[in-house]
């Protein structure tokens, strides 16, 4: 299989997620449910607790920067940046869950993400939602 500059090799579409390795948002991993819907099926919301947010501002480092400059000539996916932003997103969600756990919630509903470029090379990832206490029906 020839890999031309600018292409994405097929087995690299999801480098950070292998079959069988569930995402960090899965409840059985951390005990907290994250969702962007209003009503979770088969559950009843016992109590609303309030707004929780988690955010990170991550910088790339010099090595990734140089690779990116080179890729600017050839094109193609910047895998190191993809991984960087994915790590940032997971960290932001983790912080949001930390805030939710601190006030006694076991789920966060109506979650929204927001990404903004703060400076050249630094992006802020924000995750926010309403922390609630749910129980299964």
């Amino acid at each position: 299989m020839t890999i031309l500059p600018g292409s994405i090799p097929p087995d690299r579409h999801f480098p950070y997620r292998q079959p069988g390795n569930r995402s960090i948002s899965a409840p059985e991993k951390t005990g907290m449910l994250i969702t962007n819907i209003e009503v979770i099926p088969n559950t009843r919301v016992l109590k609303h607790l309030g707004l929780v947010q988690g955010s990170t501002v991550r910088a790339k480092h010099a090595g990734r920067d140089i690779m990116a400059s080179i890729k600017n000539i050839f094109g193609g996916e910047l895998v190191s940046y993809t991984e960087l932003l994915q790590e940032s997103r997971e960290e932001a969600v983790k912080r949001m869950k930390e805030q939710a756990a601190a006030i006694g919630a076991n789920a966060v509903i109506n979650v929204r993400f927001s990404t903004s470029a703060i400076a050249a090379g630094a992006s802020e990832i924000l995750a926010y939602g309403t922390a609630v206490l749910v129980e299964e029906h």
Partner: protein
Amino acid sequence: MESLLQIGVFLLLLGAGYFFGRRAEARHYRSIRAGEDRLRHILVLTDRLPPPGMLQDRPCMVNGNVVISVDFFKTIVAGLRNLVGGNISAYESLLDRARREAILRMQQEAADLGARAVINMKFETSRISGSAGSAVGAVEVLAYGTALVAPR
């Protein structure tokens, strides 16, 4: 000689940024915590539907925004982080302050209307360029939502 002067000016700006910036940040956090205590009764939720009990309330859009500038010390630390990598805690605290301040201002507007809660709250964050174009000048955070005003 000239380079010594440049280093001197740089260190002076760095010191001023550190000293005044840290003081301003500490003061701002104190005022944020006081404001959060004061406006704690205005609920802020990201729910899209009004909670039961408020289904007859009058909806009214409210927002609050704030623009906070970086200081020189934060800029330099971020520049170094860009080489080494990792979380830029200087900007994280800046954005945290800005978000909480924006929510407070939105809650204040809701309180002025006599509302009990703000639902479907969203954030918009944007960067305002500095003098050099690519440098961070300031960050603007907008918090907006629908305030539910109890019927008379």
